[in-house]
């Protein structure tokens, strides 16, 4: 493992499997995955459809529970946690960006960004200030009161990124964040992620199938048949 020079160990998967369905319709999505990710890394997870890369990301993000194996987040045994404890882990340490943006419709950008703070019990003044700051960080000052329908795809994804980083998470998980965007907007989003990783030390784990997007990452993990096929560090540019 070479990532230790980037930072201390943050995430560790051991022999993680995930099985969907029952009986003859069983699908083995993950097949004993071992994966370590250090703090501050920018990891791109690649692989063909059905290779298990999205499943792995969902398990890393505690959106889904593994069928067997161990998941250690810092020193927390994630697979031993209850539903609510995993929700609290998401609330305090994780941020999500999805391919389909997943913003609340008919809700202003600012209210979307405030939402995670509300669940953290922050007061209104702090919510306001933090959400404006996060929106400014993704370059959306002046768009606070627009609803998703009034924003372009790229802008919507920026709102989603602002929502993910407003809580200052340890890890940002992105599932094909550029999948619904044209390549120009895609590159802008990637540059944003790179700057968040570089300037704020947020660990970024991103699933993508686009090589030019994966090129922004410092490490590329390729999945094949439900397991890690190759794992390569990029030499610092």
């Amino acid at each position, binding site marked *: 493992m070479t990532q230790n020079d980037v930072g201390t160990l943050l995430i560790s998967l051991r022999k993680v499997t995930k099985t969907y369905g029952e009986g003859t319709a069983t699908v083995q999505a993950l097949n004993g995955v071992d994966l370590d990710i250090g703090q501050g890394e920018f990891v791109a997870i690649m692989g063909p459809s059905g290779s298990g890369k999205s499943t792995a990301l969902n398990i890393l993000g505690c*959106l889904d529970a593994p069928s067997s194996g161990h998941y250690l987040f810092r020193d927390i045994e994630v697979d031993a946690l209850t539903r*609510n404890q995993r*929700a609290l882990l*998401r*609330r305090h340490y994780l941020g999500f960006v999805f391919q389909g943006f997943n913003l609340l*419709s008919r*809700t202003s950008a600012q209210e979307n960004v405030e939402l995670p703070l*509300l*669940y953290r*019990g922050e007061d209104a003044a702090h919510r306001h200030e933090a959400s404006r700051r996060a929106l400014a960080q993704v370059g959306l000052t002046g768009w606070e009161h627009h609803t998703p329908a009034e924003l372009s795809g790229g802008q919507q994804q920026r709102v989603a990124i602002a929502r993910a980083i407003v809580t200052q998470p340890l890890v940002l998980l992105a599932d094909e964040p550029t999948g619904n965007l044209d390549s120009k907007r895609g590159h802008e989003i990637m540059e944003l992620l790179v700057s968040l990783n570089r300037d704020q030390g947020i660990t970024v784990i991103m699933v993508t199938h686009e090589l030019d997007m994966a090129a922004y990452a410092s490490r590329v993990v390729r999945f094949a048949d439900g397991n890690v096929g190759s794992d390569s560090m990029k030499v610092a540019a």
Partner: protein
Amino acid sequence: MNQMLLNALLLALRAIRRNLMRSFLTVLGIVIGVGAVITMVTLGNGATRMVSDQISSLGSNLLILRPGQQLGPGRESAGAANFRLTDVEALQAQIPSLRAVAPVVSSRVTLVVGSQNWSSQVSGTSNAYFTAGNWKIGAGRSFEEDEETAGKAVCVIGDTVRKQLFGSGSPLGGELRVKNFTCVVVGLLAAKGQGAMGQDQDDVVLMPIRTVQRRLTGNQDVSTVMLSMRDGANADQVMVQIRRLMRERRKLAESEEDNFNVMDTKQIAETLSGTIRTMTGLLGAVAAVSLLVGGIGIMNIMLVSVTERTREIGIRLAIGALEHEVLLQFLIEAVVLSALGGLIGITLAFVACLGLTALMNMPFLFNPGINLLAFVFSAVIGIVFGYMPARRAASLDPIVALRYE
């Protein structure tokens, strides 16, 4: 804990505002259901009360004896002989269960006072009429004995007649021209209002029966006898006694049918109230269907939005909401919408009932029971259909909820 409740409230209100159309339709369904049920039942109650009030204003334990067979299709009531004052005396003397027996003979005449004239019903009767008909003297007095026996030209008038002929002045001691004679007003009846058939009970002039017989009808006939039973008397028994006595006095053979009939007003009242209660039940049932339809409307709205809301729940769970926080928000949303709908429904029903009862001259009886029942029912519908889909969605894994199609 308080912070959590406050947050859930804030989120719920935001969700309501965000989906104004959906919220509006939900509230509308409840408003219509609640409003209809309350209005129907309140009006029904008012109508029942109105009829029973009017019947009881006729007099308690009142029987009415008329010549001719019982009214009804195909029955001939004309031709039967009227009663005589001696019949009235016999009834009073021989049936101890009767408290008051009042003969009545009526005639429609034009009354004149100065330049005012008014067409009204003049009834000749005795003082027993006040007891039997449940009338109270509002001012002045009833008839004196010598006025009754001698058939003097005195009268007691109803409130409508007073208004029409004397205006705001006192009628006592005033003179009333009736056809070719003048009579002195000695008493004023306390107002009763509308009768069971919608007629004005206060449009009446009462005189001693001999006065009317001599000066207006010109014969000894008594067309109706009003009989008031003592409290606790058995109406059926008394009616049998009256029949026996009248058959005897009218010399009817065993084979002949009665050529008179006795009605029990209480029985009529019960029949009428029973009918109205049935109508109220029917209207209530119709309204309950509209409440149900409103509920189904709410269910549809909720089901249509289930996809969007399931994804919303997925988003909330993904960014760190706990299951019970999401549920609390949805519960508050449902409670706020159905409570709002219920309150608007109750308010609208209140206004509608107020207007309609005034229009129909009915008493407005606020019925807390039906208001509460309709409100609770609507709240249950709102909460069940608003909360149940959310409960299912919130128990899903966040990633499943997020991908829900």
